[in-house]
């Protein structure tokens, strides 16, 4: 785990939240600003899009570096292939498009051209999860984690806020190999400090607690922190971990949670099957002794109904209240009986 200096270790006492929630921001802004900065210092950096100039917020990049901006049109298989060829030719491509199309339509290219080939291509899946709300399940990307995490060699990152989006972009730039970054358009509160450094395979400890462990990523992290506050008021101390690094994954953090807390709740904006909760379940079932009970919050095996992103998150219980309820069910309420 990445442990902030204020928190010594797993053995530390329950404490006030280390990270508090700041103003909301759209992670795409951090993404596009960082990409412009990276391009300014590294002539290899280029962008490939599928007509998605505005939805990826790359107008600024296109204006500043038109010679390093490739728009392949509405053609995702070609987009990922072109990224692979650019990497072969010594460039460092960020291939950006709506996550629903980028992953699903180009899945074989992601598997073969990126994962199997180990191409130095960074996939930026924008507006992931249910961010496109009312546009419906065609435009939702609730499956992308299950799909991408099973591809060998592919690093998978789900940033929690703007600072972590910037950190993940800088990590992607500095580290060789294929990656998938899942970047939401749902405005999220700022959590991590400016200048945060992304570490692969490391959970970020946001709050210490020994009753229950809350593991979340993406837009669910701030909700997990809110849940922890509510639980604290009920006398339940929750450890909150930001699991932004889906692959590699912080197995020791899961085993530490299994040893040090009485239950684990995972929360993610995607299918329960194959996602964050699924990974934790695999680790608990195969590696932990006396694994504590686990609750996985996410979408069941359904396509979402019509509604805004906010409505849909609430519909599926992906809220602070949903996390509180699951936690109480697992470890019980410590409130004195009336």
């Amino acid at each position: 785990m990445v442990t902030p200096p204020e928190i010594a270790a797993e053995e530390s006492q329950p404490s006030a939240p280390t990270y508090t929630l700041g103003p909301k921001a759209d992670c795409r802004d951090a993404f596009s600003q960082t990409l412009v900065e990276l391009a300014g210092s590294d002539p290899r950096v280029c962008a490939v899009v599928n007509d998605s100039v505005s939805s990826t917020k790359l107008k600024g990049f296109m204006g500043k570096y038109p010679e390093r901006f490739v728009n392949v049109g509405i053609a995702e298989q070609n987009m990922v292939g072109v990224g692979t060829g650019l990497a072969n030719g010594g460039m460092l491509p960020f291939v950006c498009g709506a996550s629903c199309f980028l992953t699903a339509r180009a899945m074989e290219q992601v598997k073969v051209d990126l994962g199997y080939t180990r191409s130095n291509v960074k996939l930026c899946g924008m507006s992931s999860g249910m961010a496109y709300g009312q546009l419906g399940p065609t435009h939702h990307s609730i499956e992308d984690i299950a799909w991408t995490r099973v591809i060998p060699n592919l690093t998978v990152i789900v940033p929690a806020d703007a600072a972590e989006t910037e950190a993940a972009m800088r990590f992607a730039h500095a580290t060789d190999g294929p990656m998938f970054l899942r970047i939401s358009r749902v405005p999220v509160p700022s959590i991590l400090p400016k200048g945060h450094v992304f570490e692969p395979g490391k959970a970020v400890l946001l709050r210490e607690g020994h009753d229950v462990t809350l593991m979340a990523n993406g837009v669910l992290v701030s909700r997990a922190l809110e849940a922890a506050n509510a639980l604290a008021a009920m006398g339940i101390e929750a450890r909150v971990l930001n699991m932004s690094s889906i692959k590699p994954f912080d197995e020791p953090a899961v085993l530490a949670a299994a040893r040090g807390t009485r239950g684990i709740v995972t929360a993610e904006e995607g299918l329960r099957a194959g996602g964050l909760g699924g990974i934790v379940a695999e680790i608990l079932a195969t590696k932990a002794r006396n694994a504590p009970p686990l609750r996985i919050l996410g979408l069941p095996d359904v396509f979402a109904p019509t509604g805004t992103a906010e409505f849909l998150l609430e519909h599926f219980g992906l809220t602070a209240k949903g996390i509180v309820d699951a936690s109480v069910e697992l470890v019980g309420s410590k409130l004195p009986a009336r």
Partner: protein
Amino acid sequence: MQSEVPVTTQRQSPGGVSANANSLFDGREGDPAILKHLANRIRMTAMSMTNHAHLGHTGGDLSASDVLAVLYGGVLQLDPQQPNWPQRDRFLLSKGHCAAALYTALAMRGFFETALLRTFMDPLSKLNGHPDRNKLPGVEANTGPLGHGLPIAVGCAIAAKMRGETWRTFVLTGDGELQEGSNWEAAMSAQQYKLDNLIVIVDRNRLQQGDFTENTIRMEPLADKWRTFGFAVTEIDGHNTATLREVLSGAPLEVGKPTCIIANTIKGKGVSFAENQPAWHHGVPTEEQLRKAAEELEAEPVW
């Protein structure tokens, strides 16, 4: 992207094909008859590899051998001592199932020992049934599923334009392979970016795994398809090494346009019992058939 990037860097040529002592190409490749013989050695080696592995894609190996001999016998600017030389020409075998022929050409050019060819598809061999660039020097792309090579080649060609480099990118596709829609996505982007450093070679042997292409999904008029997608197109005899050498050396056909060379070939070329036989898509030759092939090709394997 702005497509007309001025050329700022001149390549330092790594030397001709004969500069490498390990190369079986010996500098006489300007002679079409010698190239033809080298192509037949690729054929004979690929068939021997398929015989060894009891698995392979004989028909396509034989149709593509002349193209490979001409490319690796002098057209491609490469340095086997530095397989990742940044300014090398790129060659992508999009029809990755014809790996045996590619491996042979790479070994003949000196990228690795010809003895390695005897491990084709053996357990833990570097020579997969389909090429893997992480295992073998000289391989540019991991291909096998069809329709991947051209999009990657477009990326290679755009990279050269972005960097102001003069390398050329060649990609060899099957004809049945062009039924994959990703090729046409890539073709549209190639014309949009005026990739005159991109040369698509179609191995037009008119057969795919199950049947003739025209009985499956009709490809004709194939040249017109490429023309309307913005390519400069020529149709040539894909077994005429002199013509191949002239056209491939001289590409692009037209400044400002990507090039498509439709190489009319015969699947199973050079071996009477395999020519034009759908069953020889992945037919495996017996020892007796190998001897007959060697007589007809007047060639021995390079291993």
